[in-house]
């Protein structure tokens, strides 16, 4: 699975939605799929795990993901 789809799958899992990453648009705002503050913190942890697994060298800063962030913002933080 590509990094992009891995990030999308994780976003969908935390939101409690079906695992269909291909249908998740890059422009979708996390708040619009139900993300609250805690879910953003959980996503930061998950994205760090993905970044480490793929050795992208990216560090996800605490508080860098908010309900206003888009899916493409999240992908950009890992890639």
């Amino acid at each position, binding site marked *: 699975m590509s990094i992009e789809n891995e990030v999308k799958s994780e976003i969908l899992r935390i939101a409690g939605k079906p695992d269909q990453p291909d249908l998740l648009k890059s422009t979708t705002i996390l708040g619009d799929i139900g993300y609250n503050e805690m879910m953003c913190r959980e996503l930061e942890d998950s994205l760090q795990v993905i970044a480490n697994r793929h050795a992208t060298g990216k560090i996800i800063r605490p*508080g860098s993901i908010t309900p206003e962030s888009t899916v493409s913002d999240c992908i950009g933080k890992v890639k």
Partner: protein
Amino acid sequence: MKTKSLLTIMAIMLCCYLCRAQNVPVDSVLIYRLLKDISIRNTFDEDVSKVTPAQFMFTIPRSGEKSYLVDGGIAYTLGYLKNYTAKAIVEYHKNTMIEKEQDNFSVGYSGLYYTTIHPINVMLTHNLTFVDDGRKSDRSIVFVGNLSPYSTKRKIRFNAPGNFGDSRFGYLLTPNIGTEIQQVLKSLLPEREGTIFRGTADFSGAISFLQKNPDPINTIAPRILQLSFSYTLRRAFSDNTSVGERKTELLKAGADFFILDKTTKQVSLGLAFKKGSNPLKGLDSQQYWQFSVNVQL
């Protein structure tokens, strides 16, 4: 004072409007950044996921006493560390529309820590505030600590919105247990001064009826109607004041009709029933119905 506040709000609105008109990226504007870190809700003593909107209502009769309800707080996010969010909070709970009036102000610090106590994830909310109760003339330092499960990995989700299968019904479960330590520093009656140590348990949740959602992957269906329930039990394990507090309970049940429902912005018309007391918020034991405009940002 009122004119000054009004002018400040108008200046902020004008600034945002001018930025938009000039196509200045709003993200680069200091005021916009400040507003982004502000949240409004009923209280910051409870879990961040819990639906507790601030409530406002005013009655200004031609003659006689004004009556009003201001029941909410504002928080400003100070910063983030790994799994930790720090906020400065101000809360004001004043209700002159009920049998035993409420007048309670607090200011202080609120922290949220997220960790795993195997096998579950938990949220630890901890607040340290200075509380001024206008009715009893009590001034206290209060510590509140709450522990709540957080789960998005299991069938039943905690502190994260969930759905009953493919139906148009959603749910939110936000139970917690905690502790409250209240040091009454000053009171009109010196015998009321001292320390109260309480244990708390809160069983709360909500069921919502949602709008039809044509794109369930990229959107969450906005709520039309929500029924919420909360029962908080407080038990004073130690109380060396003259109050002699033992057990207090607060039952809240409500129905909310949503005008605007986004994850970060909610405006609704609500009907609520409350029975019991909350000594920390200056709410004396009583029972009432309340209709209000609710806001959570």
